[in-house]
């Protein structure tokens, strides 16, 4: 049947399942990976990931940064050249197209026969891996929790997501506490000259956020000459590159903004600076009530509490180099307490969360003398999916190659392939059992 005689749905299906589309998407993914890796040198891992791999469309390509990452500026410095784009699909869109393409072409359209069964299994596993990426992107949470010896916590802080939190100070110290939360996505566009007012019926004031900076530090207005000074301080923007010109890690950047509380009854305004690394929240006083406003990393709740009982640092013999950090903790769920041991690469896994030992402090640097541990906490519903899909891909390709080999040497392909796969799997399982 010629192309012109096909119905429209058939044409669409043919396009979505075509090799041409698959090739185009894979080439574009290759280009995105190349550009994202180059830009990462100046913009940092998190920003590059967000722009190239997590976005539906790429807003711009920093040609200058890519140029410098390739060291071409040694021959010709093109300066800061940026290509504003909104039509190039980002990693998210391309992966979605690849998923549809593989589903249509690699599962539905592919000829079903013993010859292709291994390939179909592998295609299915790749679809599973793309799905794992989507689940991780949408539902995974990552953060850290720092505990001093004897301290208990059941919350952890996101590595990269920031929020503004507003808490009313409760007169009763045993009262249940809660906060209003404003996500960073709602105020990170509010640079100079832009402002947005956030409202809530439970608050006696409206909160305007303005003058947001990605990396900044409050500085004392020593001469009292600055018009933008708030309570004797102004927000000084800091570079996002370190001394070597490399992008600073996202966790090292301290965002700041100006907050204006407009009291609903009357014309009074109270103005303060919110800073991510501030030692304490900014206080707004309305009558007898006080409200604490802070710019912090997003807090996630754990379904259990962790108490750090003891933490130790083991050093390489005769050196000051750390060999291993380990922690004895108690996992507390209601009235039930359970002793657990966490060390590097041996996390505690429970209720969908994995708690990894990430840092250790002897307390000497802080001058407290109290040892503490930093734990990385990951909640990812698709935690093991990539491993499972890799194993299935390997099994599928192995089946395919063995069946082709069986035909070549003229033996029964099913008996030959399946017996060899069973032998390979048994050997692999034995090796893993011995290794682990």
């Amino acid at each position, binding site marked *: 049947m010629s192309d012109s005689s096909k119905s429209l749905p058939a044409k669409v299906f043919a396009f979505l399942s075509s090799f041409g589309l698959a090739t185009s998407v894979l080439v574009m993914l290759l280009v995105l990976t190349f550009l994202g890796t180059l830009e990462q040198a100046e913009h940092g891992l998190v920003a590059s990931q967000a722009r190239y791999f997590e976005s539906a469309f790429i807003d711009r390509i920093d040609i200058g940064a890519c140029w410098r990452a390739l060291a071409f500026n040694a021959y010709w410095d093109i300066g800061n050249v940026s290509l504003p784009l909104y039509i190039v699909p980002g990693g998210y869109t391309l992966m979605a197209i690849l998923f549809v393409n593989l589903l249509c072409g690699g599962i539905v359209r592919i000829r079903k026969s013993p010859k292709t069964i291994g390939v179909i299994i592998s295609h299915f596993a790749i679809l599973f891996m793309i799905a794992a990426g989507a689940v991780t992107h949408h539902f995974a949470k990552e953060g850290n929790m720092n505990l001093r010896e004897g301290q208990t916590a059941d919350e952890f802080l996101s590595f990269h997501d920031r929020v503004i939190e507003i808490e009313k100070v409760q007169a009763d110290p045993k009262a249940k506490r809660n906060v209003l939360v404003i996500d960073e996505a709602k105020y990170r566009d509010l640079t100079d000259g832009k402002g947005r007012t956030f409202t809530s019926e439970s608050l006696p004031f409206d909160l305007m956020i303005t003058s947001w900076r990605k990396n900044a530090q409050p500085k004392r207005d020593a001469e009292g000459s600055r018009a933008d000074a708030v309570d004797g301080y102004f927000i000084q923007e800091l570079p996002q590159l370190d001394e070597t010109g490399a992008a600073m890690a996202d966790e090292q950047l301290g965002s700041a903004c100006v907050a204006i509380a407009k009291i609903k009854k009357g014309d009074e305004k109270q103005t303060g600076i919110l800073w991510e690394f501030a030692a304490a929240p900014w206080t707004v006083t309305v009558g007898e009530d006080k409200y604490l406003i802070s710019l912090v990393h997003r807090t996630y709740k754990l379904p259990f509490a962790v*108490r750090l009982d003891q933490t130790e640092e083991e050093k390489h013999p005769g050196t000051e180099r750390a060999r291993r950090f380990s922690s004895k903790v108690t996992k507390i769920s209601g009235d039930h307490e359970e002793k657990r041991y966490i060390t590097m690469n041996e996390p505690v896994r429970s209720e969908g969360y994995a708690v990894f030992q990430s840092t250790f402090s002897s307390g000497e640097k802080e001058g407290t003398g109290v040892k503490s541990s930093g734990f990385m906490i990951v909640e990812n519903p698709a935690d093991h999916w990539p491993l499972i899909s890799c194993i299935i891909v390997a099994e599928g390709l192995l089946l395919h190659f063995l069946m082709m080999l069986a035909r070549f040497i003229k033996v029964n392909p099913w008996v030959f392939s399946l017996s060899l796969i069973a032998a390979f799997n048994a050997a692999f399982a034995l090796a893993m059992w011995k290794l682990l």
Partner: protein
Amino acid sequence: MRSLTMTFLQPSCALLACSLFMTSCDRLQEREAITETRDISSHAPKPHADIPSSTRFYDDAKEQPQQRPNFRELLTWTLPEGWKESATPDPMGMRLLDLRFGPNQEGECYISLMPGPAGGLEANVNRWRTQMGQTPYTADEIAKLPKKPFFNRDATFVAFDGDFKGFGAEAAKTGYRMLGLIHSADQATIFVKLTGPKALVDQNTAAFDAFCLSIKPNLPKQE
């Protein structure tokens, strides 16, 4: 042709100018309701209100570098008989007053001060229990700990027996007893901690109580 251009150009320019003006106005007029809330854990530390900007932005030290108070000028105390100050400074530099007692000076008692709640009462009591090889207390057990007068207020008193392994020690010392007082205020937490062989500590328990009661603010004398 010219008139046609002008006919369309002028309104277009006016429309563009208006839209730019309205856009710039909207930049400060946008309003959005806060829809997200979060419950705070009972384990989360309570933040402090009315902290000045200089403290919030770690600018205190730069503000008054010469006016840091001397601990010995702030407090007075009476040393119990047989107690004396340690000849060597503690390696961490955390002890404001470091005392020794006992025939071989194996008994230790020191005062330390930390800013703010210093991790909270629960964390500090359980840190001491861990040092004595004891299991941590629950929040209820900590709430039931006895109080003793200290600085005209009630401070939490603890007494633990066990094997003591202090900070940086290679091995635990067996058969030890620890006495401690923790007084926490918004601005600072003060600790008085005594450790030593159980028999020696038992002999000095009354001296510890008397020493804690003797610690007072060094107020200027009234003329």
